[in-house]
């Protein structure tokens, strides 16, 4: 009995430890408590510290995420149930290194481009990528009388290989996107899911260069003199990852919608079966059809 009790304790502590891991996402990385069983959140509670100093985020990026928070949760922080998507985690990264390049050309409408490096260390192994977006912020509201068409050329550069495996040619990805500019527009979102899907899981750094050219949609390429228009500068893009955190601590919307039920709501098996003398499967169908109704 000593041995079994010992085993039970070891199992319980290992389970606690694995449970504790996701909580550390709430904590600054440098305060993760690897050894202690108590989730680091409680350590912060006991220390009364607010966590280590941290880099301040880009103000426009923070403004965007606050807008997104208001869409997804109430003032008290309760997730709004009127959304059916599966992601329970959204991470916004600003490029940690961009090789300075002409910040867009006001005359020809060519937007700033350059090499961008995103450091994705905060994405954990339990977070699975569902969608990724490049987010451009428009500095000032632009005033176009007609919709604008942009062509975007995205080149993803393979991370520096360790030398063993030959680094493959960089992915080049060109696509046309049409944006309706209006007074209210402050952000442009470009979906890059298909391009980044294979990379996010395996790499912690995404290196890309983005070239943007915009013109009035019915005009020739910007070289046509009469097509020139005054394009407001855009700053460098942020990368937004929509993820599904599969850990036990994360809220799984689809689960709580379909499976979570209090015992009193689940019809009693026995009484149901007696009501359907034809057999269990008929009873089960009857029950499901009633639920579906």
């Amino acid at each position, binding site marked *: 009995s000593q041995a079994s009790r010992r085993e039970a304790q070891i199992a319980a502590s290992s389970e606690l430890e694995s449970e504790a891991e996701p909580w550390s*996402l*709430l904590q*600054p*990385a*440098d305060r993760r408590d690897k050894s202690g069983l108590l989730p680091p959140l409680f350590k*912060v*509670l006991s220390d*009364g*510290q*607010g*966590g*280590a100093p*941290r*880099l*301040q*985020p*880009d103000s426009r*990026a*923070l403004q965007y*995420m*606050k807008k*997104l*928070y208001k869409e*997804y*949760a109430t*003032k*008290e*922080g*309760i*997730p709004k149930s009127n959304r059916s998507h599966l992601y*329970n*985690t*959204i*991470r*916004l*990264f*600003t490029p*940690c290194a961009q090789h300075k390049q002409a910040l867009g050309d006001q005359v020809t409408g060519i937007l700033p481009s350059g090499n961008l490096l995103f*450091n994705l*260390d*905060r994405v954990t192994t339990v977070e699975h990528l569902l969608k990724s977006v490049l987010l451009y912020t428009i500095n000032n509201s632009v005033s176009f009388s007609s919709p604008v068409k942009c062509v975007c050329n995205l080149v993803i550069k393979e991370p520096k290989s360790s030398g063993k495996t030959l680094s493959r040619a960089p992915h080049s990805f060109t696509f046309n996107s049409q944006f309706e500019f209006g007074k209210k527009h402050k952000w442009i979102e470009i979906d890059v899911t298909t391009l980044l899907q294979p990379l996010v899981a395996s790499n912690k750094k995404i290196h890309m260069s983005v070239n943007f050219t915009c013109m009035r949609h019915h005009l020739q390429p910007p070289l046509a003199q009469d097509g020139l228009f005054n394009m407001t500068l855009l700053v460098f893009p942020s990368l937004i990852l929509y993820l599904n*955190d599969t850990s*036990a*601590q*994360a*809220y*799984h*919307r689809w689960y*709580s919608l379909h499976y979570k039920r*209090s*015992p*009193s709501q689940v019809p009693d098996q026995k009484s149901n079966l007696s009501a359907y003398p034809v057999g269990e499967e008929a009873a089960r169908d009857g029950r499901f059809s009633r639920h579906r109704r």
Partner: protein
Amino acid sequence: GQETAVSELKKPLVPASLNMSDYVNQFLFPQNECELHDFRLSFSQLKWDNWIVAPHRYNPRYCKGDCPRAVRHRYGSPVHTVVQNIIYETLDSSVPRPSCVPAKYSPLSVLTIEPDGSIAYKEYEDMIATKCTCR
């Protein structure tokens, strides 16, 4: 136990000092029975507002109060709770009475600033107590 039952029956049902309505009320509306209580806190009180951007206020709520003897129907307690209560009352008072604890929770969405300056929106399970029970 007939003698005790008879003597019990002879006792006045309602103590003279307590009139009938108060006597009945104490069962209908027992004082500090197990129920949900609010505790509104702001992350600035915890000095976490330098990394938790939203929500500004968080009410985790908590369960507090005495567990009445007839817990079965009111709290959806298992029969074990009734047994534990009987053990406490009749056999061994070192066995604790059933406790008033949360039975259901709701999730919470938080917006945090990570140490590397990135921003994270996360939805965490079981962050707000929504129902109490006696166990």
